[in-house]
């Protein structure tokens, strides 16, 4: 994530002209991919290393959390600590985190499925695991549904306004 990010954000400085438009695809896809799919990939590797499920989830989410903190720090160059901290909970971050949890659940289901096929006494795919996998996806889907025309972004903005400006953005 860090390497591809550094590459993507600095490639333009080389003055590549129109080449930049297609060359940027490599670090851009690597950077975006590491943010969106990185946690589930890391989770898979950690589980193979024998790390327990909860520990693997926490460790796999760590780079994502660091990326979110980096984004909040970017904002803190302009805003005080309160709004910068609140920024951590923006719908993009929440959506990516939910997606990561959902992916990890799918990875775990896949792992157990293949383990059971390989050895009869492997850990079973439980209802709790399926529910824990489906829940983040359902929440992510629910975030996309506007409530009376209000999207999750505007709810987030309205929360900021209530917390830090002392008034609502909703019209009365």
């Amino acid at each position, binding site marked *: 994530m860090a390497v591809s990010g550094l590459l993507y954000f600095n490639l333009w400085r080389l003055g590549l002209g129109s080449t930049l438009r297609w060359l940027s695809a490599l670090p851009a896809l690597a950077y975006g991919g590491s943010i969106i799919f990185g946690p589930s990939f890391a989770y898979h590797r950690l589980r193979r290393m024998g790390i327990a499920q909860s520990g693997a989830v926490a460790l796999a989410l760590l780079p994502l959390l660091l990326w979110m903190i980096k*984004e909040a720090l970017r904002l803190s*160059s302009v805003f005080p600590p309160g709004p910068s901290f609140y920024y951590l909970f923006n719908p993009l971050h929440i959506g990516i985190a939910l997606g990561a949890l959902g992916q990890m659940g799918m990875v775990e289901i896949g792992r157990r499925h293949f383990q059971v096929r390989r050895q009869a006494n492997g850990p079973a795919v439980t209802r709790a695991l399926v529910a824990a996998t489906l829940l983040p996806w359902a929440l992510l889907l629910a975030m996309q549904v506007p409530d009376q025309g209000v999207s999750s*972004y505007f709810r987030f903005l309205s929360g900021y306004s209530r917390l830090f400006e002392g008034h609502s953005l*909703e019209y009365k």
Partner: protein
Amino acid sequence: MSTSEIPKASGPTRRQAIQALGAAGLGSLLASRVRGEDTDDRPNIVVVLSDDHRTDFMGVTGHPFIQTPNMDRMAREGAFFENAFITTSLCSPSRASYLTGLYASTHGCRNNTSTYNRKYPTFPELMAETGYAAAYVGKWHMPGPLPKLVGVDPFITFTVNAGQGQYFDCPLVRNGKPLAPRKRYVDEDLTEHAVEFMRANRQRPFCLFVGFKAPHHDWQSLPQHEQLYQEEEIPWPPESDPWLGFTGGNVLLGQMAWTPALYRRYCRSVTSTDFLLGRLMDSIADMGLDGRTLVIYCSDNGYLWGERRLLDKRWAYEKSIRVPMIVRAPGRIASPGIHRKQMVLNIDLAPTALSIGGAPLPAPMHGDSLLPCLDDPASPGRDALLYEHFVDFPYAVPAMDAIRTATHKYIEYAGDRPAELYDLVSDPEERTNLLENPVHKALAGQLKNRLGKLREKYRS
């Protein structure tokens, strides 16, 4: 000139006279002078304010493929202000500045989450006071409860998405009461309401403010424009790439898509705006009001499409602060098709409308009427403008003030970001910060000093 034609103003002297009359409570006397004895022949004023329309995205300004026949026609038949700017490059503050003639630091709506101080009236309210039929139809988008615009009827707007509205099936609010949409595309719906207002009031002078949602993100267009510009080559700035929409918080701006696709959508949305502007102008002509109606087309701010790797407004750079400003007034403009070079601002709209309508200017009033510049190419206009930006959550754009003269721009930021100085004549794209070279320190000092004076003038 017949009495039904749009009267010419006599510049600052007239402004001062109107201010004096207003102070003495004699504004109505002036109004009756302009009106005549029996009928009120004052011109109609129609302002069409679009959203995020950058000025070089029009045929008349040389965009390589965008189709804006009605804006081009307006410029051909009217006057085009080549150097029109806004004082804050953001929807809510700029809209409030258009309506009040005041800087954001005065009217209070500093960003998209702060409220506008209602002690400063909007110009449609002031026009209504002098006997104009006044209407506000369109995007309001200033936080806080919807105000009662005194004398403005109808006041039609939308409140969903914190006032940003939605392009399709957008519920409206008319004089505070819910109103179901009649057309799917919100700006088409608004256009219908605007035409209805003009038709109902065509026997008396009216002042109509139309605020389109387009071409704001998420850049939707009328169905007939959805297939436009599929193959055209986009003139990208060399520092940009197609992934910018995914970075730097841009996703939160609704830009989670391939940037060329967004650019094309923006262009289509501009064309839809143009189409509806044409419908408004055609309706004015069909009602026989052409000769006595002044139409102004403008936008609340520009937009950076990849310049400096930004997809945003807010910044003090040229693409962000330049806006279209076209005035069409048959019978009023001596040489249709004229281009004016003077620097004009969003805050000039209110005093222009009030001057035309013979309404007294309220105090404070930061803007100047456009009429002297409209009438006289040699009119000096302003020699410098103040730009101000206040932080706007959740965008990592620092607060800044800038001064722009005909030749230079000096930008000061809050926090650690170093100041910037550009020579707009030799470096119109603002690529070289002259402050990196000590040779220009003296010039920077002069501009810094002038910036301070502008702050004092407008923030006292």
